Structure formats: C-alpha cells, structure tokens
C-alpha cells in the first residue's frame, strides 16, 4: 500500500510539472515541440495524446513534462498572455496545466476500490438507469456537435484570414513593384510629394 501511495504521489507530482498543449499543427513533431519549449525550461518528455475518436482536424495535443512546476507555470502564463506559434502562423497554441486524466499511463489511485453490480429487471432503479444511458448518448452527441461547431468556426476564421492575408500580400506586392520600378518616384516628383526612394538594386 505504501509503495502504491508513493507511486501515486510521484505521479501527482509529475502532473504538476506537466503542461497540456493543444492546437498543435499536425506537422509538429516531438522534436519541434521540444525545441520550441526548451527556451522556457528543461523539457523532459513530450508525449502526444492520440486522438482516436474525434475528427482529425482538431489539431494535435501533447503533454510536455518539464523539470519543475515553476517552469510549467511560467510557460503556461507566457503562452496564455502572448501568441506563441509553433510550426505555422498565425494560429497560436494553447497551454494549460495538465490533469491526471490526461495521462494514459497513470497509476491507480490508491485506496480506490471499484464496486459494481448488475441490476436485475425488478430493481426499481432500472428505469432510471435506462434513462441515464440515454442521457449519456445524448450528451455524447451534444459534445460531438459542439466540436463540429467549433471546427466550423475555426475554418471560417481561417478562411477569412486567408483572404485578408492574400489581399494584404497583393497590396504589398503592388507597392513593392511600384517603388521598385521607380514609377512611384516619378509620380512623386510630378506631384511634389515625398516618397521613399527605392533601394539601388
């Protein structure tokens, strides 16, 4: 029992040191995540959380174990207060403190004993239990829908931003070309307006 408790205590300590990052691009690999977070602290381990059931374009999530809890806190507050982008722009990653249920190799909580029983059909609770089962499915559907909605919103935002980006890029290209081929200069002279000169190519 003691050893189990110790193990669990060690596990909880690890949880405190670990951060949960999501909104990671699928292109991010362990090396990438490690390198990007190394500037904040000592990264001990990076483990991605596999996504079996959700749609695939929610982005990756990973558990990053750090050297101590302070580093974890620093990272979380840094990432939360500024846009930290890994492997692509402009969608920033999200970080929060890890929770025990996020780990797949977690030890059993000491002192927990599971007891369960079969209900037979005469049991007065059977109806309620059936209702609960329905509720469970309903909630699962609701969650799925919420996720779908979220993904749709993300897509929309991405589309909007792509448009803006392309438009802005076009503008910049235009300005560049106009300055570059000295048209701007000539026009400026004509209108007596001050404009930056193109650099000598």
């Amino acid at each position: 029992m003691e050893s189990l408790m110790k193990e669990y205590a060690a596990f909880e300590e690890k949880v405190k040191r670990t951060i949960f990052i999501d909104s990671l691009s699928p292109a991010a690999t362990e090396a990438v995540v490690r390198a990007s977070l190394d500037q904040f602290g000592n990264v001990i381990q990076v483990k991605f959380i596999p996504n079996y059931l959700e749609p695939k374009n929610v982005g990756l999530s990973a558990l990053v174990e750090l050297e101590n809890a302070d580093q974890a806190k620093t990272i979380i507050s840094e990432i939360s207060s500024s846009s930290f982008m890994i492997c692509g722009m402009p969608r920033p990653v999200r970080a929060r403190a890890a929770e025990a249920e996020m780990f797949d190799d977690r030890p059993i909580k000491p002192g927990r004993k599971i007891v369960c029983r079969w209900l037979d059909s005469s049991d007065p609770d059977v109806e309620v239990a059936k209702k609960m089962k329905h509720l469970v499915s309903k909630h699962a559907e609701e969650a799925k829908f919420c996720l779908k909605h979220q993904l749709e919103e993300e897509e929309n935002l991405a589309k909007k931003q792509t448009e803006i980006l392309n438009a802005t890029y076009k503008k910049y290209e235009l300005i560049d070309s106009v300055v570059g081929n000295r048209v701007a200069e000539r026009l400026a002279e004509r209108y007596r307006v001050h404009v930056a000169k193109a650099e000598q190519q």
Partner: protein
Amino acid sequence: MALVEAVKAEPLAVLDKDEEVEFVWGRKRGIGGKRKEVQFYESFTYDGVEYALYDCVYMHKEGELPYIGKIIKIWENPDKSRKIKIHWFFRSTEILYHLKDVKVAENEVFLASGEGTGLANVNPLEAIAGRCNVICTSEDNRNSQPSDEEVKMADYVFYRAFDVGTCAILDKMIDKVGGLDVKYVFNRKESEKASHVLKLASDKKDNKTAVEYRANGESFGLKPQNHLGAAKLSHLLGKSDVDGQNSLVRQDAVQRDTNVSRVNQETAKEVNSVPGEKNSRDLGVAKAAGKSSHLVGRNDVDAQSSPIREDALHGDANDSYNEQQSTMKGNAAPVLVVVNSKIATTVVHNQNTSSEENALYTVKNDKKVNTLSIELVVAGERGKPSKDLGILDDRPSKRIKVNGSVTLSEDKGGDNVQKFTVCTNDKEVMGTGATPSEERKKSGDSKLSGGLDKNMQNRKDGAALDIRPPKRANIDSLKVKEDRDRSNMSIRKPVDNIGKLPKLSAGISPKEVERMGGKSLIITRRPIAESSKWFKAPPWEEVMQTSNEQGTLILLENLNPEYTSGEVEDIIWHACRENCTAKMVQRTAFSSPYYGRALVAFKTREAAERVSKKLTEGCLMMSNQRPLVASFVTLPKMEGNTPSFAGHLCVDKLRLQSQREMKEAVSTSHCSQPNTIEHEMGIEWRLLQSRSDSWWNRLYKQQKEELRKIVSELKRK
C-alpha cells in the same frame, strides 16, 4: 442631516462654496512656498470627517473605482484652494498585467514606490471620497504588527510595494518608499495618530451604530476572505455608489467603508442579499458576464443591511446563524462559470461559505481549505432552499491570515485532480455534531453527480469522522492528502467487514447495507490467463487497429473519468467474464470532465457481442451510480497522411518557397510581435479559443445538471 442630504446631490465640480460642505482646518504645520504664501496643515475636517496627515483615503475617480492613497501633504494656496498630495496604493486590478501569477489577497493593495508617474499626485482636497482603513501587514520589524482583529477589520492590507518605474513587485520596504519616509508607511502607533472621532450624523441610522462600534474597536468576529485576485466586490460596491453621485459625503463613505470592510470579511451575519454579493466576490475575476446580476444584488444591501447589522452587533453567533440560514433559503444564488483563458478550468462558485463554526475554529488555515469549501458546495447544492442545503452551504470559513497567505488563485489554477484531492477533510469543517452530518450525508447522497463522486466520498469521510474529535491545526496540501488517504484506509476497515457495499466511502449505516442486494461485485485484479504470460501483449495501437478491422471494438461510456485502463479491463472481467484490452480515452481540452470513456478491444467478435449485449440489455451500475453504456464503434478513417488543420496560413505565392524552408528547419516557433499581421490574427485565434472554451464550459455545466437530476432519481443509494 439635511446638510448631508443636500450635499449628496451636488456634483463635485460645482462644489466650491464652503458653506455647502462642512470644512474646517485642523492644526497648522508651517508656511511654505516661494513667497511664504502657502499654509501647510496637519489635519482637517471635511464634511464632518477628520483627516490627518498620513491617513489613507479614497480618492474619487469619475466612472471608476475610487483610488486609494495616503495623504502626505496638506496645504492651502493663497487663492484659498485646498490641495493634498496623495501617495498612491495600487489595487491588484490596476497592476494585473505586472502581477501575472503572483498571488494577491482580495483586499491587498500595493504601495507605490520608485520614481515616475503613478507614484503620487497633487489633488484638490474635495476629491476625497472618504477614509480608508489600510493596514500594513508587513513583517518588517519597523512595522508595528497589527492584531488579528485589526487586520480583519481593515478595508485593505498591504505589505508589498509596486515600483512604478520598473513595474515590479517589491516585497521589502526600503528606507524611503518613493520619497515617503518609511515610518509613515508602516502602521503608526495609536498615540502618534491624530485623534479622530468619527462625527456621526445625529439621526441614528442603524449603520451608524455599526460604525461606532467599529470605531470603538469592538470585533464582530469578522474574518477576511481570501480568494482570487482583485477585490471585485468592493469594486462593485464602489461602482454603484459612485455612479452619478459625485460628492461622496461622509455618510456614504462611512457606510461604504463599513460595507466594504464587512464585505471583505466573511461573516455569518452577512445580509441575505449578500449571497448575491458573495457570488461576485467569490468570482474574483470579473470576466464573467454575471457581474451585472451582482450589481443588482448589491443594491439591496443598503436597504436591508440595517436589520441584519443589528443582529451582527449583538454578536450572538447562533441567532444570526439561524436567521441567515432562513434568509438564505429564499435565494436562488446564481452559479457562475468563470472562464479565464489563463486558468482554463471550470470554476463553479456558489453562495457564501461562511458559518458560525468560525467562532469555534480559531485555527488559521490556508488557502486550500477555501477551495475545499467551494468544491463541496459544487457537489450538487445549488440554490435549492432547504434546510439541508442551508447547513451544507454554510461551510465554515477558515480564518485566513491575510498577511502573505496565498489565495485561491493557485487552487483554481490547478487541475481537476487537485480539486479532487484537496477537497477533503471536512472533518474539521463539518465537525459540528452528529445531526448536521447526517443530514449532510443524506442530502449529499441525493444530490450527486457522478464525476464528483470523490467530493461526496470525502464528505462522507468527513461525516464519518465526526465521531472522532475533529483535527485542528494548519492544513497544508500534503497533510490533507495524507489525512484523506489515511482516512480512506481506516474507513475501509469497516467496509471490508461489512463486505458488500456499493460505495467506496464509509459512513454508511448498517441499515443501508441490508438494503443492498447480494449482487455487488468488488473489482480486483483479474486473473491473468496463463498464455498471456508467455508473450508480451502487442502495443495498444496494433490491438486497436486489428480490433477495429474485425469489428470487435467497443466503446464504453459513462465511466468515472479517473479510472485507468487496467481497471476497465478488470471491470469487464468481473462483470462479464471476458478478457479484453482496454484503453481509457485520455482527457483533452474538450473532453467532458464527468464522463470517462474507454475503448475496449476483444479478441473475437462473439466475445464483443456478448459483452455488448449484456451491457445494453442489462444494467451494470458502477460505484458512482452510473450504468455503463457500451456500443460498437469503428474509428473514423484518417484522410491522407496529414489531416488538414485550420489556421495555419500561407500566402499562396510563397507557398512553394516556404515549404522548402520548412523541411529544413527543425523548429519554427516564435512569439508574435505586435507590429506584424500575424499578431492581430493570432489574437483573433485566441479570441476564438476562449470563446470555444466558454461553449464547452456551458455545455458541460448543463450536462452536469442533467446528470445530477437523473442520479437524484435513483431510489437505491
């Protein structure tokens, strides 16, 4: 007083005639100025309230919370204009960015120090909005340590400084804090202070009595309450007072002072509209939309405060306890979900967490207990007026030493695990006797949501341990954990003896045990088949994939999210006598905190079907009153190798270029700089992220409610 009434209506700007507001100079100090035309003073009486040098005051600020400052100079110019120089204190809201993760008490302020703007200002004397009781709780030996009562009664406390030049928090007071001699920073002894007797208006409103008592130093037994960050409630109070009412008359100020001080402290004698206030106070972070509802709640305070305060004055704990209990009945306290992208856990608050046990518990406990209180309240009791709930809700608040103690922000910032582990040991909290604990037990039984079964369990622990003398002394998290584990262990002894118990925790009366059928299964490690000892099991991924193809993959839902994969396998073994490999689905950003799910892979289709049939037609109830739900599942197919990911944009024309670069770079991470296009876009994404967080929170909150309702319908506990 008519004079006072009249002044109330006057906007501050118009106020320039002496006869409209009572003003009297106090002791003179000296002459100054280039031509000796400026007269300095040591004190003055403004509108009936005496102010002295180095007193702390509220400074009225249009449309905002009043500022807090210390008078460091008082003078009158030759043109008869009266000025004061104010050395500022910062509220934590004002320096939130620089605080980052630093913990602050709710009524903590920071003394301005260093050099630069924001240190001190000259203001017209008429901008004073009342006196403010700020106590220095620094442990510096130059500071006369305030008594606990003084700290409790203080409007604000401070022990740290904020350097306006470097924007840093300073823990130690240097000799001259921003030009102010340090001895004026610390608490001055009574004898040094100018005597101030609050001149109260002659018409005795009840609140005046309260003030007199306070001035006389009588303690109400009020305790400060720590929690998240800023003193939001005083913010709200200030707001409703300040709105449209520019000249803060002494009367208002005094009343507000008492309100603020009272509100800053936890007391059982709080008014019934206070639950509304306390909600907002508990909120701490004023990001929730529910703030306005609290403003509404707050307006009642003035009207209703009087009768309750009388009770408070009498200081009889029990009387006001009952009264408060009854007053609490009528209130449906709204439950608010605070979404803080930084903290990112669902924090659900409830009504006030105070009770008379305060009087009994003189222990100074730290922050953890506060989480305790709140978490327990979370476990089901929400605004339902009933005697049981009344008791449950009146969680005794711990007297928390304000000086340097950490607030709940850390707890709330912690993960759900912490919530569960820390939220325990009510034995201290609940030790008021057998009856309340039984009631609590019963109501705890009935109002339960599965995911929070740990809370219930712990509460039951507490109930069971009521029999033993409640343990006192400082609780720190480790000790709490140990206690809980110990209590779990010791409780299990009677459980083992009794044998078949569907519940984990003790405190179950023998009567209940009899009601249980003999069908309970205690899950232990299942026997491992011989053959599997010979070779290592293939990794889960493979197992899952093969199982998926063969159609033998089952999704189990409605599990306790804390279970591990091994436990799931054991459950299936004991319940259905089938071997399987299971994997709990790991929690992610948008997993439900109340449902655990697991993927279970069977070797044969028949086995899978058997299990599925059994679980669907029959009903396997888990320890936390939840039946397992099983369904066949096929994993969604992967489309291509790299699934699309919204949000990572690329200018089309440059796409080719960047792809080449990307392949070579190992890491391309950075924080966006404010002068780039990506910065704005990044912010839009963060906005979307926090919006989606709030959707999830709302959804789960609602689901939790529904779940709880159904569980409460279960007849057999």
